[in-house]
């Protein structure tokens, strides 16, 4: 549906080198990357607002690389919504239909469908500057969708909202995507948002597409330190594969030996997600497998959850719920046991 091949964009300090990405028909793809990674530029390039230096963009099989924005049938929704301040909500939504000279009947239908879908009939005569953040978001989506675009591009739709409106709009986007099935490319710097919404996630950084996959893949099977770090997999250890006892495979990092699941993973880095690391009282620590003992050196309180750093050495970070934290009465300086499944250790080549 969207097929990007060897795209190369240059803008001041920023460059996107040789990026390729495919988005399936009806898919919700989230592109995630740090601020300044050129996510907005990527969207604007797809929309035709920005000329790539090299590369090809195809939408529904049609090569649009040289087309003007108005010929691409791609709608864009910016972070600040970009409603036309001199037009009423109604005229904002009708703008695209008028510009595309849609015939009157079809236009009326598309308009009423969009108004109904977003439940914004009450806002139609308002001035966009008087709307709340959530309302502006809905109007911007209605305006973008009532021209029935082939592709919807969404730029950081949640980042300027407060936490509660954010959850509401997140649910709205999910509902909308299920209802309309429009191919969507959503960019964000927020990894949680990507996990919550994406059918698949593309991680970009350092001017490259680093990894594309399902949220679960990105989470559990990062292909590089960049992706692992961005997904906040705090436990990344350099080392090498080795044979462990009883014919099992292992990964040796310094003095530690991690047991691995059987499989054909190969590489020189092992990563274990903090939420896969269990904390146990030292007394109940089982024998064998990936079990270690160490001292708690830091507890970072995140509210509902806490990150507990245990010095083995090296330091391994475990995610504890507040419930565990209270039950085990965790404290800095306390000695505890940690354990994790062999299946939780993912090995990749850096």
């Amino acid at each position: 549906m969207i097929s990007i091949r060897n795209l190369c964009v240059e803008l001041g300090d920023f460059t996107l080198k040789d990026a390729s990405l495919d988005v399936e028909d009806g898919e919700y793809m989230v592109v995630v990357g740090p601020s300044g990674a050129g996510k907005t530029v990527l969207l604007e390039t797809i929309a035709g607002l920005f000329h790539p230096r090299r590369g090809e963009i195809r939408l529904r099989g049609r090569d649009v690389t040289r087309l003007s924005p108005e010929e691409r049938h791609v709608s864009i929704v910016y972070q600040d919504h970009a409603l036309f301040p001199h037009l009423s909500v109604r005229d904002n939504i009708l703008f695209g239909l008028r510009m595309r000279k849609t015939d009157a009947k079809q236009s009326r239908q598309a308009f009423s469908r969009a108004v109904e879908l977003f439940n914004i009939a009450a806002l139609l005569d308002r001035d966009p500057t008087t709307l709340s953040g959530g309302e502006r978001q809905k109007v911007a989506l209605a305006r973008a969708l009532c021209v029935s675009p082939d592709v919807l591009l969404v730029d950081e739709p949640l980042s300027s909202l407060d936490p509660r409106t954010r959850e509401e709009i997140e649910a709205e986007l999910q509902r909308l995507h299920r209802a309309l099935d429009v191919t969507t490319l959503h960019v964000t710097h927020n990894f949680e948002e990507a996990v919550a919404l994406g059918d698949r996630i593309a991680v970009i950084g350092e001017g490259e597409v680093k990894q594309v996959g399902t949220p679960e893949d990105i989470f559990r099977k990062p292909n590089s330190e960049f992706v692992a770090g961005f997904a906040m997999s705090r436990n990344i250890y350099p080392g090498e594969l080795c044979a462990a006892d009883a014919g099992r495979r292992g990964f040796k990092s310094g003095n530690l030996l991690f047991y691995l699941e059987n499989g054909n993973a190969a590489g020189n880095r092992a990563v274990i997600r903090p939420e896969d690391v269990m904390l146990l009282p030292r007394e109940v620590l089982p024998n064998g497998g990936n079990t270690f003992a160490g001292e708690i050196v830091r507890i970072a309180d995140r509210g509902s959850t806490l990150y507990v750093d245990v010095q083995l050495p090296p330091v391994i970070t475990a995610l504890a719920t507040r419930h565990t934290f209270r039950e085990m009465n965790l404290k800095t300086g306390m000695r505890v046991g940690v354990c994790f499944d062999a299946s939780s250790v993912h090995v990749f080549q850096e």
Partner: protein
Amino acid sequence: MRSRILPRAWLKGTFLILGGIILLFIIAPVGKMIFASSPSILMESLRDSEITSSILLTLYAALLATVIGFVLGVPLAYLLAKTQFPGKKLIEGIIDLPLVIPHSAAGIALLFVFGRNYFMGQAFDGIGIRFLDSLAGIVIAMLFVSVPFLIDSAKEGFKKVDPRLENVARTLGATPWKTFSRISFPLARRSITAGCILMWARGMSEFGAVIIIAYHPMIAPVLVYEKFETYGLNYARPIAVILILISLVVFVVLRFLLYRRERS
């Protein structure tokens, strides 16, 4: 707008006194002219056809200059605000040139292009337009000294239009012309109007460049000078007062527009 603690009294006091001097220096002459004039003399002056026709000529010529400036200048302002190209800084510099060139020298320079023996002068002569001592001459003199105000104001207006609004319009199917006419121009309209008024006011107030190109027909600022030279201060005064009053009205409208632009 964040309020701050005011500087301590002595610093603020000193600054207020210094600032007050310059304010008085500006207000006093203008205020005295207006308030010390007897309305009856002003009314009488307004019945003097020499005075009224010179004032109407001034307003009309400045208006013509503004219309020409609008047609030629607004597109340029749009290009300067919205596109990047090499030499842009140079072009922006050229546009502001008339602001620093001494007005009488500007008049001389214009004559060397639009005078009857020179290139443009001859070209226009072919279609019956002459510049020396004519309305056309007054208009080009006014245009030259005042067009930077319109272009700069329109440019600032276009620059304040969020490019994302134009981007959204494009993706929704608007052509570049529709994007300009439906989005950019309406959103910059207040700045453009302010620029037009400023250009008109500046054109009306021009004296140095006009007097070189067209002593006759006599625009009001030239008439003020003529009366002053020929009959003295008291005879120049009523026309000066009328001119200042007209400027003030235009100016108040302008400030109002600028004020609303700042707030929006």
